[in-house]
């Protein structure tokens, strides 16, 4: 098999699919570690619909950040990925249509170089770093906070591109709601929640059920070398997905200044793995189950806020009919099932000590363990621990937020420093809304247990892997007025010791710490409140991601990082009528590491309109990809859907 070596790409495709598929089935509903301890109920509630503001995240209050309020998209069929796509600095990659694995890139970092937290609990599984956003229940979220930059000091190892904090809905009053949507290719979603309680405690129970056949049609050229080539119109097969997610949370006041809360989140799903359009895999499927259970107690004594929390996470993933090159028949002797189980537990304590009247010092200690076990991997476990100090220092109209974290994960240890500052130079007058900010950080990402130990088919582990490292600086200016917010920022980051899967002859691939990169960019966001209950939003990202690896790749751009991305949306929300129109444009981006193959630029237009038909009931109709562009693709020739239509009914009571 001589040139099987050149089939590394296929092997890498498989690897990506595997890692995406092995992203832990999401769970997680807990109380943020840092949130409540420093100040009683220090919720980072945004004032605006979408805010670039210094209070976006309690852990990193001066980081460049965007807050996405989920209820601003009520009546729309939105996945977590689609909510994230409204923010600058974010690019998303999907292995197909609805229900198929979708991953996040912040500021050009890879999916496993950004943290995704569900109410403070990291969702990165021990087996694979990338979080599959499609396993997260968007309907059960209150908001998403996207903080960008190297934020390891504030959030822990792995936050090289930034952090996405998913904030689940919290019980507010005795109420409930439900939403049902039905759309193209039998895509449907049913979600509902009930909020209950009394003066001493409150709870919420929510559920989200998703289904899709995913059998959309797509077009691809038969002979791409020939201008004006005919296209093949095909129907996506084996792209179905089913998922159910559950959220339970309860908070109980146990004393005048302390409370305890519990959270349980679980999800289970199964889906076909359709493969790239050039080589569909009709027999591959993945089944996953997972859950998070967390408990926290928090309070305040003598002006010192304190909290303690424990959480545990369990995930299981089973792959059937999956092979390195293509698929196979489940049940055949040469087509064994692959099963991975992973667990993670952690305990955390935090105290917030006021220093004078304007400053606050938060000290956090955490320790835990993660493990992975499975047929291709064997059993492995490792411990972790960290000690962090974060300061919130305020000097008039300026604030400084130094942070440092010492952390050990398995055999990897590092210290992550970081600092951010903001300054509003004018207290009054026309320029009062002006704010300047800057930040810097240095951190690391330890190799995942998959990278260290996963041995499956053509993928070899490398127990000798070391951590990746990155640093970044950024600065920005923000204008934040009542009806108009604009934020412009720029960043510069360097990555070294990046883990890259390399050919390991004759036909396998193996990870090594060989890559390096420089990533710089500009992020712009504008939010404007307009007359007639209109809100306009625009976010733009420019990215220059350059490969610094010695050799033939050096100097070229990193693949799958779009240099330009623009999202624009105009929404109307009134008492009786609502609607929106939005455009999502992505520039052409490199498809390989040599600047010789590109994914074409893509423009997607979406629109929706709805009306309140009774006191509690809204009916909406939504159309996506209005141009019916069926040639759109994402990673590794995975096609994306053309025009889709959905009807949505929702009610609150």
């Amino acid at each position: 098999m001589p040139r099987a070596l050149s089939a590394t790409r296929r092997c890498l495709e498989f690897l990506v699919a595997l890692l995406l598929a092995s992203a832990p089935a999401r769970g997680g509903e807990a109380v943020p570690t840092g949130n409540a301890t420093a100040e009683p109920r220090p919720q980072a509630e945004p004032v605006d619909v979408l805010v670039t503001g210094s209070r976006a995240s309690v852990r990193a209050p001066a980081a460049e950040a965007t807050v996405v309020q989920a209820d601003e998209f009520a009546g729309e069929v939105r996945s977590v990925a689609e909510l994230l796509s409204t923010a600058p600095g974010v690019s998303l990659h999907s292995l197909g249509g609805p229900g198929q694995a979708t991953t996040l890139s912040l500021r050009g970092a890879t999916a496993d170089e950004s943290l995704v937290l569900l109410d403070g609990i990291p969702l990165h599984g021990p087996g694979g770093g990338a979080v599959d956003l499609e396993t997260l229940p968007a309907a059960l979220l209150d908001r998403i906070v996207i903080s960008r930059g190297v934020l390891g000091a504030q959030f822990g190892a792995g936050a090289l591109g930034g952090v996405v904090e998913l904030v689940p809905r919290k019980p507010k009053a005795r109420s409930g709601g439900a939403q049902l949507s039905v759309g193209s290719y039998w895509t449907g979603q049913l979600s509902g929640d009930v909020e209950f309680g009394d003066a001493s405690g409150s709870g919420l129970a929510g559920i989200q059920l998703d289904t899709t056949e995913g059998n959309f049609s797509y077009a691809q050229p038969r002979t791409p070398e020939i201008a004006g080539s005919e296209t093949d119109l095909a129907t996506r097969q084996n792209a179905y997905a089913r998922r159910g997610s559950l959220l339970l949370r309860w908070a109980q006041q146990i004393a005048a200044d302390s409370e305890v809360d519990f959270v349980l989140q679980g999800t289970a799903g199964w889906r076909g793995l359709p493969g790239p359009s050039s080589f569909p895999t009709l027999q591959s499927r993945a089944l996953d189950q997972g859950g998070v259970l967390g408990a926290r107690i928090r309070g305040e004594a003598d002006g010192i806020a304190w909290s303690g929390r424990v959480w545990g996470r369990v995930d299981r993933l089973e792959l059937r009919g999956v092979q390195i090159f293509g698929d196979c028949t489940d049940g055949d002797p040469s087509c064994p099932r692959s099963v991975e189980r992973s667990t993670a537990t952690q305990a955390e304590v935090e105290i917030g000590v006021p220093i004078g009247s304007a400053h606050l010092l938060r000290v956090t200690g955490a320790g835990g363990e993660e493990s992975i076990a499975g047929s291709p991997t064997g059993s492995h476990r490792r411990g972790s621990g960290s000690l962090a100090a974060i300061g919130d220092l305020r000097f008039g109209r300026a604030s400084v937020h130094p942070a440092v974290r010492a952390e050990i994960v398995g055999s990897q240890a590092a210290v992550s420093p970081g600092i951010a500052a903001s300054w509003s130079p004018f207290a009054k007058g026309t320029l009062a809304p002006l704010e300047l900010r800057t930040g810097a950080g240095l951190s690391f990402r330890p190799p995942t247990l998959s990278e260290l130990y996963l041995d499956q088919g053509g993928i070899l582990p490398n127990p000798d892997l070391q951590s990746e490292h990155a640093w970044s600086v950024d600065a920005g200016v923000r204008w934040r007025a009542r009806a108009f917010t604009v934020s412009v920022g720029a960043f510069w980051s360097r990555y070294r010791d990046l883990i890259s899967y390399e050919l390991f002859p004759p036909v396998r691939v193996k990870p090594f710490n060989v890559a390096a990169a420089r990533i710089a960019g500009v992020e712009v966001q504008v939010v404007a409140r307009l007359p007639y209950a209109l809100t306009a939003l625009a976010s733009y990202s420019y990215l220059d991601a350059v490969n610094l690896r010695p050799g033939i790749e050096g100097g070229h751009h990193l693949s799958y990082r779009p240099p330009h991305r623009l999202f624009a949306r105009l929404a109307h929300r009134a008492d009786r009528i609502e609607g929106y129109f939005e455009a999502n444009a992505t520039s052409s981006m490199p498809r390989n590491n040599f600047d010789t193959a590109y994914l074409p630029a893509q423009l997607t237009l979406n629109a929706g309109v709805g009306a309140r038909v009774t006191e509690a009931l809204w009916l909406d109709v939504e159309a996506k990809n209005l141009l019916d562009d069926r040639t759109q693709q994402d990673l590794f020739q995975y096609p994306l859907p053309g025009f889709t239509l959905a009807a949505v009914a929702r009610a609150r009571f």
Partner: protein
Amino acid sequence: MRRILLLSCTLLAACGGSQQTAPPLSKIPLPKGTALKPYDPANPGTAHPYNMAAVGTKVYVVLGNLRADYGVGGPGMLTSIVPSEGVKDVIDLGGSDGKECQNPGAVRADGTKLYVACAGDFSGTTGRAVVEVDSTTAAATHTRTLSADQAPSGVAPAPDKIWLGLSGGPVLISVDRSTFALTNAAGTQTVITLDCPHTIYAYVPDLLVVGSDLYALCSSDRAGVIFRLDASTGQPKGHATVGATPTALAQTPDGRIAVVCSADNTLWIATPGSGGTITAQLAHTYASGTSTLQGVRSSARYVFTTASGSNTVQKIDVSVSPAKVVAEANTGTGSAPWDVLPLSDDAAVVSDSLSDDLTGLTAVDFKAASQ
């Protein structure tokens, strides 16, 4: 009279002889099931066709005989076909125990002899070998087994030895053509290590002998290089940088060397110079929709290439600069075309590595580019 006859034959040959050759079947099924002599009948391999070579009117295709998990399902095979008719012979390369040759990938012809490089069991240590096959008897005539660390990925017959490129490093070894031994009369083994920049890996994906020259590709994590060596001694003469992850090379109709590079989607043309030198120029950057270039071969006038990631075959005129894709064919979703063997300027046979058959392409299958 003899001159006129010779001239007529020459003209016919120059015209490609396409009028004389029956068109290939559009699909040529390959052996399966018990024909592949599975080690475990309950868990057989499938054909997995890779490289091809022509002897006379027959096309010879190596069959990997691999299972779904890419474990070896049975002995390495070589099958002969007549493109217009189908499979003729199935030649077992596995030797007495069926495991001397496993997972063959490369084959080159020299006269009536064929030489097959067997990469062996990826998960084990068996099956590394080079096998000589006599096309006249459709049988293996010599087998030289190789050590576990000498898995060959390319093969090229020279007048006095068979050159093998290894997958474990930028290394060439040779087998004496008369004795089929790894050592020469003095008892020493020829091992040529190519000066190929690399940090993590390097290997030799393909080899070719043209006259007194041996051309070898090196693919590594840091470079793609074509080397020109002495075909008799293996002494390096010159080298030139080509694209990323070169996968195959072939002589062009005008005597140069074409190299396809899968990682950066490029076709390079290397030109041998005087004194053993060699230079290489980028001839074509493929369209973004074309991916994972695998094979390259030449007809009388054109260079043909395969791209397994886009299931396409290109017909390229390299006599112009830059080279021009004059036509392209699609072999069908899921075919993963590996190697191409032109039967004429308008027809070819393609080995579909994942659909376990061969595709025959004729002029009607090629979509011509506008002039």
